[in-house]
């Protein structure tokens, strides 16, 4: 049986990019976008699995407009050959459930054994889409996996993840949704040749209509009220010796 893997990826601002609140209250985001940190781990994990299962079929999916295409080119440069953009820029404002609905609709026909996503996306840090895809498809979920071992013939996957202070090794049959935590795989930097080739590739698009999902259903559950600066701490108080430190800690009631 040939293994089928879907990898869900998203283009987000680089973690070094400057993100600020503009004068009009919207965000000024420096124009440095990359494939999200945990999503590259998911891509690499899929590539690792293909090393042991040469006939594995891997489909990378990204929901949204032209930035989605960029993330798919990255996936191609890293070694995936089957990629697909779902929807268009009308999906860029969708919430997690909107994105998950489109993905679940596409996966109905792809019929994956394994769905790999990131633990959370580098922009909204929500951690919603992976679990939501599992909920919509009614299939098992293993969040924040740090190790994965696929036994295609036995029809099962073994994973490790951290569960409230313990490390759990769990096993699931197919299909299963697994989200990637750091440690699951070590993403490699693609070679220039492949990057060039990926830049020229034609990227397939499947529209929301084709998938029978309305982009309008993807909004309306969440309304953004505004952005705020992160809370700041008052100026640090420097202390000269440990007795002084202990005295202040006692005064603050934390020891």
């Amino acid at each position, binding site marked *: 049986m040939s293994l089928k893997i879907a990898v869900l990826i998203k283009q987000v601002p680089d973690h070094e990019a400057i993100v600020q609140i503009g004068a009009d209250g919207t965000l000024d985001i420096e124009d440095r976008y990359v494939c999200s940190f945990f999503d590259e781990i998911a891509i690499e994990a899929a590539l690792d699995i293909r090393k042991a299962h040469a006939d594995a079929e891997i489909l990378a999916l990204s929901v949204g407009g032209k930035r989605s295409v960029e993330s798919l080119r990255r996936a191609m440069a890293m070694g995936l050959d089957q990629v697909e953009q779902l929807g268009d820029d009308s999906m860029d404002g969708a919430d997690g459930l909107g994105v998950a609905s489109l993905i679940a609709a596409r996966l109905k026909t792809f019929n994956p054994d394994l769905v790999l996503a990131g633990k959370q996306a580098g922009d909204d840090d929500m951690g919603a889409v992976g679990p939501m895809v599992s909920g919509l498809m009614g299939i098992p979920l293993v969040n924040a996996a740090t190790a994965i071992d696929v036994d295609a013939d036995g029809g099962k996957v*073994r994973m490790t993840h951290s569960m409230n202070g313990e490390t759990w090794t769990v096993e699931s049959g197919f299909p299963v949704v697994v989200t990637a*935590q750091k440690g699951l795989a070590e993403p490699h930097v693609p070679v220039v040749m492949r990057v060039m080739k990926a830049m020229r590739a034609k990227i397939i698009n499947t529209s929301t209509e084709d998938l029978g999902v309305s982009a309008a259903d993807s909004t309306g559950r969440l309304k*953004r009220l505004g952005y705020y600066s*992160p809370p700041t701490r008052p100026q640090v108080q420097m202390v000269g010796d440990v007795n002084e430190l202990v005295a202040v*800690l006692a005064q603050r009631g934390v020891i």
Partner: protein
Amino acid sequence: MACNEIWAVARIRDGQITGAGLQLIEAARELAREKGLDARAVLLGCDRATADELAGVVNGVLWLNDERLNEYDAAVHAGALFGLMEARGKPVAIFAGTNDTDSEVVPRLAAMCGAAFASSCVKIRWEGDDLAIRRPVFGGKVYEELALLSRPAMVTVRPGAFDGAQKLAAPGSVEEISVEIPASSGVTVVERASSAQGGQDLSDARRVVAGGRGVSGESYQKVEALADALDGSIAASRALVDAGERPHEQQVGKSGKTISPDLYIACGISGAIHHVLGMNTSKVVVAVNSDPDAPIFAAADLGMVGDVMEILPALAEALRARK
């Protein structure tokens, strides 16, 4: 069908309500009070003693007393909460923790009932009749405020966002409810190993001593000794985890844990934004670093410039002397 309640999903550890669980109950109590709603704790599985303990801090406990819920399974727990909604009506909101289990259960449940979901909330307030939540985005560079326009609104709350609920003058009631429990999703647990933390979840620790590259190798023992003197837990920066010196469960930061202890002592940690994100909601932050210009001092309440090799043992000693 709807009910005028806010539910707090109370997680239990070794038969005790966790600190984060008490905070969730407080969140439900505060927000319910403002709108004349009822706060309820939802208990999945467990025993009568635990249900009674919960009733000490909240007016009503909805106890799903079914032994099939005692072992955690994301699909079963999400399904049971879905069943509770069918039986009792949709609550106004469901609050849960940012722990590893609820981070699976709640978004899965939100998908099952088409509800709005937001994770890692640090503030919750009413905006008219909708709940508005504040949460970090872009790795904490900014915070967003979102209104959740569905019923129920589903929220996971960061520890430290609320104070722990105080005991009620008179205990609340415990209502045993039987709901349909779905079959296991087929994820079986092969092995449960307690981490180096002795099974204690760093997310729930009150005092944490964390070490970075400045305490790599044998010097990390100084961190452990200080944690011991504080009855606290140990943690690490990514530098030590990547170097294979500390397990990943102990990593604090963007790609590790987000924690909000009362006291966080950063030792030999430079204070990269990715690290700070995991601890900046701690109540009191202390930084010990040999570099007076280290960015960690900007994220700290109290700072000491110097060598960890000298300061940590002296601090441990001073704390012991106080006991």
